């Protein structure tokens, strides 16, 4: 069952981050991840796919295939890309309902929260909302 899929990925990430004992290591890792982000099509970098509330530009799109959602994204800031890439790793490839129910608690646990408090977290929350909005759309599609 893929709800535990999400939880498993979260657990994986938490374990990975435990290897770093300072923020530099974590940031370097995030930046690395950012470089591997599955990129959104250039022609989708418009208002509809833009996430409001971030200091850097962020675009997110979702493809729906056989009941599962797959995310792509981009940002002009590297750290932001890294963070989206973590979000995508956790949420991508899951069913809309599972995505809607994800509590994304791993963000607190990997010790990034303190480096991502209100103003920055607003951006983070905006990204998560955008992804959950996609899930909402396709979750309703399922019902109908």
């Amino acid at each position, binding site marked *: 069952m893929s709800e535990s899929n999400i939880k498993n990925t979260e657990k994986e990430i938490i374990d990975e981050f435990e290897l770093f004992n300072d923020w530099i290591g974590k940031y370097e890792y995030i930046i690395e991840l950012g470089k591997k982000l599955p990129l959104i099509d250039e022609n989708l970098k418009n208002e509809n796919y833009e996430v*409001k509330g971030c*200091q850097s530009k962020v675009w997110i799109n979702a493809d729906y295939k056989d009941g599962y959602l797959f995310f792509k994204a981009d940002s002009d800031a590297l750290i932001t890309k890294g963070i989206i890439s973590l979000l995508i790793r956790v949420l991508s490839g899951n069913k809309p309902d599972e995505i809607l129910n994800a509590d994304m608690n791993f963000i607190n646990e990997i010790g990034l929260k303190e480096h991502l*408090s*209100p*103003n*920055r977290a607003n951006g983070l929350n905006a990204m998560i909302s955008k992804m959950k909005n996609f899930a909402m759309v396709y979750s309703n599609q399922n019902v109908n």
Partner: protein
Amino acid sequence: MNIDIVNENISFDVYKLRKEFPLLDQQINGCPLVYFDNAATNQKPLSVINSIREYYETINSNVHRGIHTLSERATEAYENSREKVREFISASGSNEIIFVRGTTEAVNLAASTYGMQFINEGDEIIVSAMEHHSNLVPWQNLTSRKKALLKFIPITDNGELVMDEFKSMLNEKVKFISVVYVSNTLGTINPVKEIISAAHSYNIPVFIDAAQASPHIKIDVKELDCDFLAFSGHKTYGPTGIGILYAKEKYLDLMPPYQFGGEMIKNVSYEHTEYNNLPFKFEAGTPNISGAVSLASAIDFINEKGLLNIARHESDLLKYAENRMNEIEGMNIIGNAKNKTGVISFIINGIHPYDTGSILDNLGIAVRTGFHCTQPLIEQRYNLPGTVRISFAVYNTVEEIDRFIDGLHKVKKMLS
């Protein structure tokens, strides 16, 4: 009068509590200060004063736009305060809480945005005959600009709204009502819930001026179902320069911004600006951050003492003071509503309020004299040259009332 009886219901020790208020411990004109001007502004507990210091010594920074740690901390403190205010008045969402300078700015904001947008020629606005200038002059100005009509709910000699009269004033032309919750001059607690529900049967939005309610009465905007409400920090054991406008989201969404600038924008080009979401749409420029942050401490103080305890204490003081004042020949108490807070306006036959106030001040007793920013109420309704007003806070004592009564005897001796 037995002090123990007066105090038996008080669940806090007022003498101990006074120690939390450094200002109270001083001599004025050679006498220990008696501060009875609490309706004008009340004194601040150490916890509030310390929270201002702490803000500036540890997290001071500009809010919202910064990504560095201090800015994050200042933003968090500022937004936590908004949430604390939301809880304090039981609003549903903290995006319905707008930080303003005080009640006056809140009324002006509503008149200049909602009023300018939705009041038209021939419309009527209703206020009461006991409004503070801050809840009167903005509506005078708006109605005169819009060629609308300003109407007044009359009051009885005791200082109560004539509710039947009010209800008969309601009709389709009435587009807004703004009423004071507690009169700063008479102490009357108005039946605002009844006003709101009557108004809502005509779909008229109601603004509640809660400047004199916030330190004394539990405000519950959900239960009242008011559409707008305002109070001031400095009358609520908090700092000057900060206050709250509450409004229902549906109204805030309809209203154009009041001031323009930083923070209230989402997107700006040379040609055009897109405004921000609530509550930021109404908070242009750097806000009074330290004011907002220490308002949270003031609310903590009130919650810790308990509004019910505070109200009971003040009500005991009110009864004690009224009884003792009525012993004095020629005493006229203005405002004898059944339901009132610890505010007593009075005038002694043949003695001008200014003379009374001047002599009391020389005895270290701070009272207010004059119109109390309700000039039409005093001059036109009661036909008086002014009144002397005493008003209580959580830290006042019966001994202070005794000193005040002694002072009145001296006033009479000197002036008659």
